[in-house]
């Protein structure tokens, strides 16, 4: 069982996201450790990209803030190396295919293994194009997290069959960002996935309140929160630590209800 899948053994998983380099490399390290301490089971680290087409305004802005500070892929590998000195929490990169392609697949995934990255999410790499990286990811023990969307329908089977780590179920149409309500029939989709694979299913896009966290935890194996966390960092900048700890532990606790 991969380290990521293991993270789901401890009740429902809480997965938190932040953008590397926002507001700084040092603060990103501090915030990852803070989220780990507050109970996050997996942490997604965004490698910023100039044109994040799957993101809503909150994470778009975080990408641009981080890039304008000059952070790059090598800095982020260094940062992960530092995190690993103090934490064994499963870490997953979230980025777009071009920065990975540009870095070189072999070099990128080798580096992932060297610094201790356990998985990767690439929103613009659907099932049909997974062949770009699957071999490299496999060779270096990096789980490629598959996404399933409300529109996936008869693609669910095909995607679920090949899934590793966990399945990222996109809760609603559109891009990332806080939503008041989630209308998709997640229960049905999760049921279908479960009939095909034992790989855990975590739901993301739009989740931000403890109440949503609780509700989703009743039907899924985990919840993913991005924009709400990034918003805290946007608001409190270098002083976000305690706010993040408070928020993450509240959200994690809600999964246990």
């Amino acid at each position, binding site marked *: 069982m991969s380290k990521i899948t293991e993270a789901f053994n401890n009740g429902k998983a809480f997965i938190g996201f932040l953008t590397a380099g926002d507001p700084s490399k040092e603060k990103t390290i501090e915030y990852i450790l803070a989220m780990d301490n507050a109970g996050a089971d997996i942490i997604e680290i965004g490698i910023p990209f100039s044109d994040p087409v799957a993101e809503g305004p909150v994470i778009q802005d975080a990408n641009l803030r981080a890039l304008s500070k000059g952070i790059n892929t090598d800095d982020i590998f260094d940062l992960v190396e530092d995190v690993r000195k103090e934490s064994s929490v499963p870490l997953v990169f979230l980025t777009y295919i071009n920065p990975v392609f540009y870095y070189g697949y072999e070099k990128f995934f080798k580096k992932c293994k060297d610094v201790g990255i356990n998985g990767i999410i690439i929103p*613009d790499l659907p*099932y049909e*194009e997974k062949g770009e990286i699957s071999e490299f990811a496999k060779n270096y023990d990096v789980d490629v997290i598959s996404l399933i969307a409300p529109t996936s329908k008869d693609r669910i089977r095909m995607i679920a069959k090949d899934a590793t780590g966990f399945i990222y179920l996109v809760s609603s149409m559109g891009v990332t960002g806080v939503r008041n309500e989630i209308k998709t029939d997640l229960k049905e989709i999760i049921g279908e996935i479960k009939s095909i694979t034992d790989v855990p299913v975590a739901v993301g896009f739009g989740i931000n309140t403890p109440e949503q966290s609780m509700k989703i935890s009743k039907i899924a194996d985990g919840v993913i929160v991005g924009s709400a966390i990034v918003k805290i960092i946007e608001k409190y900048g270098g002083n976000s630590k305690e706010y993040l700890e408070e928020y993450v532990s509240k959200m994690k606790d809600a999964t246990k209800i």
Partner: protein
Amino acid sequence: MMKENNIRNIIKNTIRNNIRHTIKDDNIKDDNIKIKICGLRRLEDAEIINKHHPDYVGFVFAESKRKVSFDEAKAIKNLLNTDISVVGVFVDPKIEDIFYLIKNGIIDIIQLHGNENEEFVAKIKEFDNNVKIIKSIEMRDSRNKNGGNNSVNKEENNKIDIKNTIKRWENSDVDYLLLDSGKGSGEVFDWSLIENIKKPFFLAGGINSENIKKATGLKPYAIDLSSGAEENGFKSSKKIAIIMDKLNEMKNMNNGRYGKYGGQYIPEILMSELITLEEQYNFYKNDFNFNEELQRLLNEYAGRPSLLYFAENMTKDLGGAKIYLKREDLNHTGSHKINNVLGQVLLAKKVGKTRVIAETGAGQHGVATATAAALLDMECEIFMGEEDVKRQALNVYRMELLGAKVNTVYSGTRTLKDAVNEAMREWTKRVSDTHFVFGSVMGPHPFPMIVRDFQSVISREIKEQLFEIESKLPTAVIACVGGGSNAIGSFYNFLNDDVRLIGCEAGGKGVDTEYHAASITKGEIGIFHGMKSYFCQGNYGQIAPVYSISAGLDYPGIGPEHAHLHDTKRAEYTPITDEEAIHAFEYLAEKEGIICAIESAHAIAQLIKTAKEMEKEDIIVVCLSGRGDKDVESIKNYKIAKTSKTSKIAKTVKIAKSEELNEGSDLIE
């Protein structure tokens, strides 16, 4: 001298032909699923096979209505092209028979359907180690056959049995597996049983022209056709032709690949829509009524065919090749954009969409989309970067006048690239009733194909019109390239001809500065906006801000088919600077009385260079992709600014200059 020229021509043609073949081969290599046609039994079958040339054929030596004797097989085999591999199909055969058939060169490959074991396989390999062996596995599912209470258990057991059998043979010395519903029953089995097969496999059982596309999606090594290739019990040339055509079409368009470029790098939310769109497009592109309606719109509404105009003054002045201009600027809405937009919006309407969205840079594509939406009564929203909204206020008003809602995009560099991002985001929010009208031969498959097909009317007309006048092909075709839709439209029907194809990229303030949009000349391979192609990129694969005086060419990438034409050297791509484009803009106005778009002026600038180098017998066709009204003001300001540098004209003009020149630097900062 004469002789030398002839030799040179022959060499030139040979080189061109080689280039052409490379293109073709590259397309096919990408997804080379082999074809086997099984069950030949008549001498005339050999003729049919040679005509369609599958990779394998099969003779059935087991009990079956398709059974043939060794002698019959030998007679047919002798008529077959020698590069088609022959498979012998057996059920628990005598090993001596196999040895006999191999020794006499009647078969090359053994296909085993019975209870043969690993020892049997070893014996064959011992006899001739070069002989390949295919082991057939019956994927028969019990679902339909067991109605009782135990059916669930039985189904589970059956699945486990099949898995174990597959595992057993995966770990054996056979070269391939063949998955079939039974022993050639001609029925389709439950394809979901195919999971992570570790040996290359033939897929058999009821495959026909209807399900072949889905079959190839399972990534088999080969497709095995038998009853699906027959009519009245015998192999049918017509049926085989349909299947081979479908397969070739898929090979050429493997997820929209042009060599290694193209693809579908797009969020999962949109994948189902793209697949459906491709199916719908493939249906309508062959639909008589659709084509008739589109042709009527193109002719009666857009004003096609556009003129092919002999530019006599320029021809005389440049003193080289004869120059023709393809007047896309005379189309309704003033550019080639209408060709694609009418096609896409009509398609969207046919498939039941009620709303279209589009990105726009200068506003040409936005205006064209708004126009088609007004005509065909569709809701329309256009996404346009804040910078462009400011630069092209008049076009914003035109779109609004046509009933479209114009959304100003404030993200990123606030230009065309960001307009595409925002339109894509909008599409992921609302896809069920909305079609995204991509404006160029870019984005994820099938857009580069759809837009190219709709724009290929340009080269089709050039070919016909020029043949009428000159009875020959042009020596060269020149077009400007941003995403590359007017260029691919102008090139497409000449790809297999001996015609030079030249695309002109935006060289901005020079390709050695940071201020250009020359993706091929200065960019690197990358993956963005759904496609693998060339992009202007910064460190670590961040998409670079780009610059051009022409908003229509101000895009950091280029369509994937152009990337492939560049790599295979079938087309040439060359940068043209702002200065050169402005000079060409004025030159064309002075010489021919035509004010063209600043985008198209890039092609004219190349024409000025190329025409001089050519002989009087040569012919150059330039695609004049758009008209220049939209650019007159900014070029006037640019010119005044230029002169003010030395003559110190009024202060107000200086502000105009700095605003104009800062368009690009804004993007970089």
